[in-house]
């Protein structure tokens, strides 16, 4: 496979994924599959939003993709743009940031160098500076410890930490849910721009329909371990910033569509 065809295929493709948590004390997986025959693909420059009721397995899916859990069956393929032997780094931004509290922000952002995943050590300084600018963070925070930053700043710092590993695929687990509305809007914009600008792929798990419609290119509703119908969000301009997308005439239509689907899923689960 040459690099040309590699670029055209999906960044992530999942087929027939099956997973169940083993109930305590027994070796066999519990009969109730949490994730059952799941298919999903993500292309470059694309944000796929996953919506779903609490406890339906969204975090579990991301953990499976990130390799933290082993699937029982099915295929998770992440396109490797590098040598086959090197593991493709994934940028996984947890709901609670995972900045190391004993390292300064700078130390945290240089984690990629220290782990040795990053060969271009010289460029680190410039990349950090560029990302700080993208995410509207002051250089001063580099000398501070995570505990000295606000929640929103930490969230941004941990996104940069993940980006320093230069991943093609980003997984975000409700990254903006703990932020105030304005910070959220801004971060959404910054993140959207980054994915489009650097041609990465992203899966965004969220509870916020509005956010999903504004950010996502495609939108999937997860229902008891299956992904329901995909909803393509056709925007007149796919580089349109999320805050502007909220003002588009089609926004309300998308919102209603998603809500009615989500409602039927949630109500279906209840009875």
């Amino acid at each position, binding site marked *: 496979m040459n690099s040309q065809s590699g670029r055209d295929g999906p960044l992530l493709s999942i087929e027939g994924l099956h997973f169940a948590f083993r109930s305590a004390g027994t070796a066999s997986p519990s009969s109730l599959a949490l994730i059952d025959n799941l298919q999903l693909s993500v292309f470059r420059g694309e944000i796929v939003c996953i919506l779903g009721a609490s406890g339906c397995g969204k975090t579990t899916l991301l953990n499976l993709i*990130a*390799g933290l859990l082993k699937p029982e069956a099915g295929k998770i393929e992440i396109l490797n743009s590098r040598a086959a032997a090197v593991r493709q780094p994934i940028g996984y931004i947890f709901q609670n940031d*995972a900045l*190391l*509290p004993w390292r300064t922000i700078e130390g945290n952002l240089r984690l990629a160098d220290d*782990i040795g995943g990053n060969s271009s050590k010289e460029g680190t300084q410039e990349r950090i500076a560029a990302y700080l600018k993208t995410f509207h963070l002051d250089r001063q925070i580099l000398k501070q*410890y995570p505990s000295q930053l606000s929640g929103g700043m930490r969230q941004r710092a941990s996104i940069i930490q993940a980006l320093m590993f230069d991943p093609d695929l980003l997984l975000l687990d409700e990254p903006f849910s703990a932020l105030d509305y304005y910070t959220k809007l801004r971060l959404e914009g910054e993140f959207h721009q980054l994915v489009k600008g650097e041609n990465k792929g992203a899966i965004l798990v969220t509870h916020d329909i509005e956010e999903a419609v504004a950010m996502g290119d495609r939108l999937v509703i997860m229902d008891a371990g299956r992904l329901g119908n995909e909803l393509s969000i056709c925007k007149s301009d796919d580089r349109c910033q999320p805050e502007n997308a909220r003002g588009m005439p089609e926004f309300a239509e998308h919102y209603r569509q998603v809500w009615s689907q989500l409602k039927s899923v949630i109500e279906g689960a209840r009875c």
Partner: protein
Amino acid sequence: MLIFRPAISRLLQWSLYLLPLLAMIAAWYFYTAADPQRQFIFSSPEKVYLALVRLISSGELFHNSCVTVMEAVIGFVIGTTCGAMFGLSLWYSRLIARIARPYITALATVPVFALAPILISWFGIGILSKIMLAFLSTVAVAIVQSYQGAMSVEPRFLRLMLVVGASRWKTFTLVVVPSSLIWVINAMKLNIGLALLGAFIGEFISAEEGLGYMIVKASGLYDMATVFCGVIALILIALALTAAIEQVEHRLLKWKSS
């Protein structure tokens, strides 16, 4: 600290620290002055003061203190370092950790007092046997504390290292060791007193120098003033060593205080 107090009240704080001490000395003074007979067992502040002057000017107190400090500190450093390295490295293998557990528990529960005669007959009555005693009193605590520290690393940090594909060694050096540092420092705080006790017990049982030796010899002669001097020296040494550990803690855990 959130509240900055003016210097004047700082002075007040310091004098408040000294107040209980002064009260104790005063009580001691009046109790022993009331009936000179009591001075035979309780000595008295003046006698202790005179003995202190004598022991300091002869260099005896300084020499014995140095010996005890040396034994305790060498035993402490070796015991805590080896113990912490071993305890942290148990993170690598649950199997070895499980096998090691009863041995560590045994080591932690055997009183050094019981080991002292054996060690003295093995290593002689010189400082080597005291260093070994200090080592043995500290190593178990260091192992237990640092292993617990290594096992209680927050899962989100381990998840992060897994996701970015860090090797086990990198995970160990970049996450397990720094996050267990608090536990290692706690071990140090406990151990400094234990090391001093170990060295002291060794000297107490058989030695030719050191504060333990000085105290045993003086109590044999009913020279209570010298015994008190030895105790005071021990207390001051313990306070100084603890303060030194706190300095180390402050350096190593800068991220915590800020």
